[in-house]
């Protein structure tokens, strides 16, 4: 019974939360290029959130992919650097946190 309880615990273990996403953003040093409200090397997080919040489910996936693999063209000529050391799950939590900043 103990074994099944353990398995169940693993099965329902929550994913990384959006709140933890903020900490992950800090750890990955995203603030080297992004700030909350003002333009830096990359677009402000609030501007990203405002643009994509209406499609947050889809854009969580899209932004997570962009965090890991980099990419560009959305905000100008400068591609975002890839962050290959960020896992998929972490990237989704980071994207959720960013999209949650929408006013």
């Amino acid at each position: 019974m103990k074994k099944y309880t353990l398995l169940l615990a693993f099965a329902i273990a929550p994913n990384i939360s959006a709140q933890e996403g903020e900490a992950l953003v800090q750890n990955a040093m995203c603030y080297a290029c992004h700030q909350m409200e003002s333009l830096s090397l990359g677009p402000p997080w609030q501007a990203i959130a405002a643009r994509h919040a209406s499609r947050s489910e889809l854009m969580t996936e899209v932004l997570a992919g962009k965090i890991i693999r980099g990419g560009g063209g959305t905000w100008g000529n400068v591609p975002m650097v890839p962050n290959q050391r960020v896992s998929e799950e972490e990237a989704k939590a980071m994207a959720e946190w960013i999209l949650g900043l929408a006013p």
Partner: protein
Amino acid sequence: MKSFKLKLWSIFFSTLILSFQPARAATIEGIVVDQNGNPLTNIQLVYTRASGARGASAVTVFSGTDGRFRFPDDYPERINANTDIAARGLGYRQVDRLVEANRRTANLTYIMQPVTNQVEVAPASAWLARIEDRAEQAAFIMNCIDCHQVPASEVRDYAALIDDLHASDPVLARRQSWDSIVKYMNFLSAWEFSRGGRPEGVEIDAEAVYAVENSADVVNLLTGIFKDRLDHIEGYDWGAPIITTADTAIWDYEVPEPNAIREAVMLGDPAMLLAADVGANRIVGINVRTGRQQDFEVPTDVLIAPHSLHRGSDGMLWVTPLFNNIVAKLNPANGDWQTWELETSTGGGVGIHDLSFGHEHELLTDAGGRVWFSDIGNRAVGYFDPADGSTEIWNTPVAESRANDSALYGSAAVYGLVMTVDRKEVWYSQLGNGVFGGFNIDTKEFIGPFVLPDANAGPRRISISDDDVMYLALYGTGQIAEFDIKTRQMLGIYDLPDTASAPYSVTWDPVRKVVWVPTANGDVIYRFDPATKDFGVIPMPRERAFLRMIDIDPATGVLVSSYANIVENVNGPRMAFIVDPGDGAYPEKFSPATASAPTTAE
């Protein structure tokens, strides 16, 4: 029927006996051939072992002249078709592998195909051949290759991302993109190098530390040379003969992340790799035989960020810091530390880089037992007395021909340090202005300074032979300099086989009578023979092999060093490693299975 039952019992007992036999360790051997069955020499066989395997994380050997190879020692794990042993060679691709394995032997056959595109093995330096002007190449290397390779694979991936923009003005897009990357890198390096004294919540001044001062020039250069996807390169060769044999072996020991492994030496009995983690306040000890790791925390309240390691002749490990004025000494046998916080008699601080290496690449003190150091903070050399901590420094003289350029003078950090055989002089290098010189310990007078032809020569770690010939690794210009201390004469400055390889260090080998040159951007170790002025090459088994100082085990002659990509979120291996060149030059043969590193008491 009786006979059948007997047979069954016989099979049962045989099986039982077999199952109780200790697992046999397997030898791994084989051959590398081309598609016509011709043997291929100097192909690397890289065995990446399962996580938690006893001993090294990866072992590499090379095929001999008959194409055959054999991994040293035996391996307890079962070798089968899924085992990660890959063949790797510049200009070749593995197209097939045949595995015949039983419990005692794994026999592997690799079939290789020549390829035009060398992108999978060519080092980052290969791409910098696009910079035709040597002075421009040197300036770029000095600006951009302090912490990681350029263009490492992620830099090349970024070039592809720029190309994928399909921008209407591609030159503008490249310029803006590389400009952003330079700023991003400035930020990361400022973050890394301010960790020692950065209060929480204080914003990082990306222009303050190690920032690219002439970023406009760097951006122009990047825009001009990295204008494609950087996914195709042809015609690169190592530039000198590969000196590996069928007896050459490389053992890599991975350190779990996060870490910023800087450099490594081997000490103790049983032998331990001791790796400096510049990202923490620790030395990581790795048991060479078992691979088991333990931390030796430096007992200080402030982060010293262990940077340079020095093997003491008494078996102690001497550690100097990246951030401050604390020298530490570790006894690897019992984990005991001793530390000294250095301060001059006038209350001034010091910033230590190296302690004085002798010709056996051990810490060498002067006749009074004082430890000499290069002071990167004050552009000085100095000593401290381990008995009472007393410290004194002398500022190095200004090289007149480089004195008018304030930027050069400002970056003229005193970096490497060696001591002559008679222990009466120390000699130093100055990284940022291409200058070196000596200091007479008795008279307290400087000798020189001596000026290298290129201000961006970038002399880093230096070494001294048993005949008082000093060797300087010229990081920027991709050369080594050979200077006779006795006659104060430059014997020669020699181009490395790849001048964009960024040689970090040089180490005199007292038995082989050669100089070993680890590179930061070339994925190779060079061997320089002073008698013939010839170079040889040992290719490393992985990309982004950002190599640091090499130490030489005095008993077996194996080379010990590390892959040292720093800034925690930069990709790349973080490992300490051991290389047996396979030349049989030392009487004792190294084996991790029996490794001990005998030390001699003073």
